[in-house]
């Protein structure tokens, strides 16, 4: 990649981090955090975004970040109180800044509809100090030089000066700031033909020398094609740390006057000047100093005359500690290409399988459990598990990154609905696989919208129910039995079961006389087709229902359900695997083949009775389960292992719930057991096979296919329709 493009990527990645920092800082301040480091961090975040934006010339971003930064600086210095209103505006500004970053990332630099209005608000807050500064170019250099340039104004009829006499007398401060008179003189002499005169009259006797004082004055005559501005610029960094005068001379004067050229000067000084000054800063003074003065710390300082005697390259010796080990890029983290991590995960998967194969072989060989081999194998198993966990942990990230996006959403939805909402988050540090995190954002967004829009009551209703006007939406994450559980809860009115049931009946999702438990009614909201046009509001609408949420959670191998208490609120609970590299599977046999069905999809298993299975003609069959009918799909036939279906009493049915909540029963010969299996991509190793999601290798070394339940159900439905 082009290095600049790579840096651009880094910049936008960093922006995301800074925006998150900004928002969490402002929220903490809103919550009463008065730690000065919090406002500093907030300021730095905006400041960094501005700095990077400047490097890539992202104008609207720079302008807005500048105004924002100015207001934050006022707040940081205590001139602007961090009141609730101010912080609200800052939070909105943070949202606009985030949008500007996104558009800049997408290559659109068009600004933001609210940019101007918020800029004005921020400017008004910052008061007069920042109001007239629109954050354009900043340049100290220009700022510094403007007054100087007036000094060279000459009467129009005077010809431009042909030479300048520069008198330069460093003060001790100049050296203390590590500026070097020699370097300044060198640069000055590059501007044109130069004559340099050194006045050493102030240099005291050696015994009286203060090594940190300055005694020398130079007078340099520069002639040629230069101007005062260029000369002043040489001394830009030492302005105030030296006496400096620059005088123009007429064309007739100047060059060629008495005085020495700098080379001769150097030669002369080297030849006869004070020898002690050749001491280089890091060398022990005694080595080169014939007459050490009593000042012990002379050594590290570059004393004034030294800067003439010795070119700076010699002043600084080779790094003394260069071969000391510590290299500077070291930090608490390293960045690794994701492919490498995935390759490692893959290899560890192989290791786990191999270990299982070996364990099975040893068992089959009939070795005693206490034998050295079996015990060694136990240890290997332990280690393998640990390696697997550690490697999986590399891909794990705290859910914070997705949780952090939610406060903004809550603010927006709260503003749209007019419901005051407080978002409470818990367990942000809980870690889960990166892919799971990435795919969590959409369902979480939808659920939080729903919680505010449908879950929370209006402030009036809340008041009537004796609740505080401000509703609470809680987002919590925790680890529970090898999975991550994420809960979205609200303290609203809970699910209106009468209404949900009514809608379900009206939509034909359930029979009008169906008897459902409270829990079953609550879970009706996950049925496809439950969300209705009447329900679609600006906020939680967008044509997405809870069925889509459930589908995306299931696609991650997760489950979701809801519990609700009338008047107290509802809680959505999602349980997700910590990794997508392993799967909890039900191992089954079909026609001598071993297959794996994902456990998350299986609701229950049952041994069908012959009278419960009904033929629909052809090979299509349905099974009656507690009064309802679901298609009975013979997996052996669906995958082409056999031509005629297995008799109903000879197999086991797995009641599953596929995509969109449709139920079906998968008919298999027998269940072998439950096992965690390592997922191996079939596409990567062979090719895509309809009905097969992936493969795995079992402990006995056999390859087992992992069923793609949704495809099997969809294909069988199509055939069933044809048959019917």
């Amino acid at each position, binding site marked *: 990649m082009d290095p600049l493009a790579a840096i651009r990527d880094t910049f936008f990645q960093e922006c995301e981090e800074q925006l998150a920092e900004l928002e969490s800082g402002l929220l903490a301040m809103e919550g009463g955090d008065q730690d000065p480091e919090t406002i500093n961090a907030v300021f730095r975040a905006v400041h960094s975004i501005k700095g990077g934006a400047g*490097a890539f010339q992202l104008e609207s971003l720079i302008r807005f970040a500048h105004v924002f930064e100015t207001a934050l600086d006022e707040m940081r210095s205590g001139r602007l109180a961090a009141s609730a209103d101010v912080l609200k505006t800052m939070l909105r500004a943070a949202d606009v800044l985030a949008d500007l970053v996104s558009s800049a990332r997408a290559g659109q630099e068009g600004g933001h509809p609210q940019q101007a209005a918020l800029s004005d608000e921020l400017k008004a807050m910052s008061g007069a100090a920042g109001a007239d500064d629109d954050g354009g170019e900043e340049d100290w250099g220009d700022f510094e030089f403007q007054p100087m340039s007036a000094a060279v104004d000459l009467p129009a009829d005077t010809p431009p000066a042909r030479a300048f006499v520069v008198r330069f007398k460093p003060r001790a401060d100049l050296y203390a700031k590590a500026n070097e008179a020699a370097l300044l003189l060198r640069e000055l002499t590059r501007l044109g033909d130069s004559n340099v005169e050194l006045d050493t009259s102030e240099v005291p006797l050696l015994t009286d020398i203060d090594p940190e004082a300055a005694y020398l004055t130079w007078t340099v005559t520069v002639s040629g094609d230069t101007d005062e501005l260029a000369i002043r610029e040489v001394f830009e960094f030492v302005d105030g740390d030296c006496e400096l005068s620059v005088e123009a001379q007429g064309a007739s004067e100047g060059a060629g006057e008495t005085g020495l050229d700098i080379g001769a000067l150097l030669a002369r000084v080297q030849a006869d000047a004070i020898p002690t000054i050749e001491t280089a800063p890091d060398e022990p003074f005694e080595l080169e100093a014939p007459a050490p003065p009593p000042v012990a710390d002379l050594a590290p300082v570059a004393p004034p005359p030294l800067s003439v005697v010795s070119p700076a390259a010699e002043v600084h010796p080779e790094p003394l500690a260069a071969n000391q080990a510590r290299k500077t890029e070291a930090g608490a983290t390293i960045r690794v290409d994701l492919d490498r991590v995935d390759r490692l995960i893959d290899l560890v998967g192989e290791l786990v399988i191999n270990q299982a194969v070996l364990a099975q072989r040893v068992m089959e060989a009939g070795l005693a459990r206490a034998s050295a081999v079996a015990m060694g194998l136990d240890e290997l198993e332990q280690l393998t598990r640990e390696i697997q966990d550690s490697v999986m942990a590399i891909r794990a990230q705290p859910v914070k990154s997705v949780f952090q996006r939610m406060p903004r959403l809550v603010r927006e939805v709260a503003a749209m609905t007019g419901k005051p909402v407080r978002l409470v988050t818990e367990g942000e540090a809980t870690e889960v696989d990166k892919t799971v995190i990435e795919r969590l954002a959409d369902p979480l967004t939808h659920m939080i919208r729903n919680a505010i829009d449908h879950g929370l009551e209006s402030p009036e209703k809340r008041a009537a129910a004796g609740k505080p006007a401000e509703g609470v939406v809680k987002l919590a994450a925790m680890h529970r039995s090898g999975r991550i559980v994420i809960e979205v809860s609200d303290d609203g009115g809970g699910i209106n079961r009468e209404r949900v049931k009514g809608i379900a009946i009206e939509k034909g999702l359930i029979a009008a006389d169906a008897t459902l438990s409270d829990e079953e009614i609550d879970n009706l909201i996950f049925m496809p087709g439950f969300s209705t046009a009447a329900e679609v509001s600006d906020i939680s609408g967008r044509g997405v229902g809870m069925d889509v949420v459930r589908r995306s959670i299931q696609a991650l191998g997760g489950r979701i359900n809801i519990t609700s208490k009338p008047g107290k609120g509802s809680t959505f609970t999602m349980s997700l695997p910590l990794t997508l590299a392993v799967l909890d599977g039900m191992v089954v046999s079909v026609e001598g083949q071993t297959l794996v069905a994902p456990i998350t999809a299986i609701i229950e298993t049952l041994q069908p009775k012959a009278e419960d299975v009904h033929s629909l003609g052809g090979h299509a069959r349905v099974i009656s389960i507690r009064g309802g009918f679901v298609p009975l799909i013979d997996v052996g036939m669906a995958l082409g292992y056999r031509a005629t279906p297995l008799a109903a009493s000879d197999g086991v049915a797995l009641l599953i719930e596929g995509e969109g909540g449709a139920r079906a029963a998968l008919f298999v010969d027998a269940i072998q057991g439950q096992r965690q299996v390592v997922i191996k991509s079939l596409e990567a190793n062979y090719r895509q096979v309809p009905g097969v999601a992936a493969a795995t290798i079992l402990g006995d070394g056999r390859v087992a296919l992992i069923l793609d339940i949704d495809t099997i159900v969809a294909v069988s439905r199509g055939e069933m329709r044809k048959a019917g």
Partner: protein
Amino acid sequence: MSMTVLTVDDSRTMREMLRLALADAGFRVVQAEDGIHGLEVLQAEAPQVIVTDINMPRMDGFGFIEEVRGDPKHRAIPILVLTTESDAEKKNRARMAGATGWIVKPFNPDKLVDAIRRVAA
């Protein structure tokens, strides 16, 4: 032996830009993320020039410059301040702390290199 430049900046973007600009100019670049990290790096490396940001967590540029100037072993290293601050007060504070010179962000790579060569041979 090429000159070693230590850059101290909390922004990854800036660090990468500085590395690119300086490495292109033939300098050896060592980097730190804030003032404290910078001081740690100074224990192991002997840069001929330091380029530092001002606004940083843990220890800002002012504190860092003061520490370097207060350390007999490192006080003679030229330090350029790299910042977007146009504020004269900030620049003066950096100079009071002992900054050798300054570079305005967004920096032009050539000017940066010029400034470095200006304060170090």
